């Protein structure tokens, strides 16, 4: 292979490097800003998803309410409660229910190691762990079926409660006194992002086996039913059937939206997913526009560079350069500048993203940093970006090159 011309091109490029520096920088900056923009966008969207599922995925929560319509001669304004027996009743009649768990709640003093705090205490069953994303930290566990059936005096703590009562020490196996009854700590909740809640974040709660809770609490009805349908698409159906079945049992109109208070996170999450999609489309659009602006800028600079070289091209043509040589040189130079700027943009963005990810996130403040400090670097986006911008830059290089190579050498020579 004859390397004479490539070497000559390289030589000429090096001599003009300073003039190309602006374009190289523009490409570097464009690459950096687009990659960062999309990395933060993706990271934000991903964090939203994580924190949204902090409460629990595909979850329907049902609480008793007050009727707002009169039904079969009964007046409106009646209190409706849900009872323990309703769990089996609903499970038998609605095959679409995958998991169902009760939850009752009270606010009790909790003390350990000479410290006392007031915290929400919940009685529930083993299924609650799955329903409400209750993942224990290493060395602990959540309430299991035996705890419930045998009425064990065991407690699962939110991480804030654990820290408030036990400090940095591991509370598992230690005693905690709730409403003057001693319990053994069996686990602590693993830290998680959670953006929706009903009695404060899970970090501040204490969970007991439903049976043990009922023994010291004198409330007959249960505060809340948690239901997970077999498929997310069945959530509306399950919700309606619960209304119909409980309406028949407790005699209220299934159409009465106040008789039962229902929180259907699946229906909510449809909305949230639409918002995430919206954010992503919005950022993609901004990215595309930035790309367009960048491409226009680069095209402009390339064009100016070509214009500046009109006379030089005239000289080369006059002394016998073929058209192909002129075009080749332009394209090689353009693509080299593109590769250089993009490469440094990529390296910088990649490292920045990974540096930012090293900053620890505070799980308790739910501040903006949890959403901003976890950008996601996507190689696919980079590849797509390189292809799109590569084509644009190639075009912006080839048109001035073709124009220059087709020009009449005399006119190019006269150009000042």
């Amino acid at each position, binding site marked *: 292979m*004859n390397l*004479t*011309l490539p070497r*000559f091109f390289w*030589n*000429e490029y090096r*001599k*003009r490097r300073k003039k190309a520096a602006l374009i190289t920088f523009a490409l570097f900056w464009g690459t950096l800003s687009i990659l960062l923009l999309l990395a933060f966008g993706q990271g934000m969207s991903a964090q939203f998803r994580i924190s949204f599922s902090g409460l629990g995925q595909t979850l329907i929560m049902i609480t008793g309410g007050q009727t707002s319509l009169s039904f079969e001669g009964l007046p409106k304004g009646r209190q409706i409660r849900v009872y323990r027996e309703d769990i089996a009743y609903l499970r038998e009649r609605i095959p679409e229910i995958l998991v169902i768990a009760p939850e009752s709640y009270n606010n009790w003093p909790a003390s350990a190691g000479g410290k006392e705090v007031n915290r929400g205490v919940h009685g529930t069953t083993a299924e609650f762990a799955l329903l409400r994303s209750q993942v224990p930290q290493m060395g602990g566990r959540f309430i299991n079926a035996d705890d419930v059936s045998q009425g064990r005096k065991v407690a699962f703590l939110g991480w804030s409660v654990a820290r408030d009562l036990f400090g940095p020490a591991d509370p598992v196996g230690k005693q905690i006194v709730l409403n003057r009854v001693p319990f053994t700590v069996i686990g602590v909740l693993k830290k998680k992002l959670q953006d929706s809640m009903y009695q404060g974040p899970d970090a501040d709660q204490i969970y007991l086996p439903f049976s043990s809770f009922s023994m010291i609490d004198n409330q007959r009805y249960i505060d809340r039913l948690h239901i997970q349908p077999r498929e997310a698409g069945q959530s509306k159906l399950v919700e309606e059937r619960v209304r119909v079945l409980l309406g028949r049992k407790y005699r209220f109109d299934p159409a009465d939206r106040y008789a039962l208070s229902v929180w259907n996170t699946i229906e909510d999450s449809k909305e949230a997913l639409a918002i995430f999609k919206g954010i992503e489309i919005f950022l993609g659009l901004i990215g595309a526009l930035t790309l367009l602006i960048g491409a226009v800028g680069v095209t402009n600079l390339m064009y100016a560079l070509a214009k500046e070289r009109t*006379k*030089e091209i*005239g*000289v*080369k*043509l*006059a*002394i*016998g*350069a*073929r*058209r*192909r*040589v002129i075009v080749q040189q332009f394209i090689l130079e353009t693509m080299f500048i593109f590769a250089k700027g993009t490469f440094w943009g990529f390296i910088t963005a990649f490292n920045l993203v990974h540096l930012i990810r090293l900053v620890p996130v505070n799980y308790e403040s739910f501040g903006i940093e949890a959403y901003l400090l976890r950008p996601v670097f996507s190689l696919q986006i980079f590849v797509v970006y390189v292809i799109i911008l590569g084509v644009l830059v190639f075009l912006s290089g080839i048109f001035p090159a073709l124009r220059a190579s*087709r020009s*009449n*050498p*005399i006119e190019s*020579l006269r150009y000042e």
Partner: protein
Amino acid sequence: MIELQGIKKIYRMGSQSLEALRGVSLQVKKGEFISIMGPSGSGKSTLMNIIGCLDTPTAGDYTLDSDRVAGLSFDQLAAVRNRKIGFVFQNFNLLPYATAWENVELPMLFNGKNARRRKERVTQLLNAVGLYDWRGHRPTELSGGQQQRIALARALANDPPILLADEPTGNLDSRSGEEIMDILTELWKGGRTIVMVTHNDHISARSQRIVRLFDGLVLP
């Protein structure tokens, strides 16, 4: 060597058209040294561009070194310029960012001469114009006379049979001009065909024959 027969060149700018050459016939024999003279606008630059294959005539026949130029493609014309013609311009037209050496080497890069032969030839040419010691300098670091000598060396790089000089002394002081003319005269004596455009009588006196152009026609 050069045979022009009824050459016409018409420039069109929108609805206006300008007849720069109105039927020029001219013959230059091998080894001849001619000057083309004439006032501004007489068409001498246009004629020069056509002889130099930088431009094509609107009508007429042009035979260069027994090859017809009409009908050659852009790249074929480039090859003719590269091998058969050496150009010397009034304003030198050297590449500003390239060194003297690189400027002289340039025409050989476009026809694939190997590195050893290029090196030999550039060394020989720079010595011939007395600028070998200046080979690493850029044009802006050289005087006008030196630049034109570099341009001459470049024109001779591929050893073309014809040398076209468009006002070669136009931008030079008289002493540098004389030096350039001495080199041209020497080249002519060495057997090269030279066509020069000038409006300086003193310079044209060096040539064998003077062709006078007026208003797009050769004066008898």
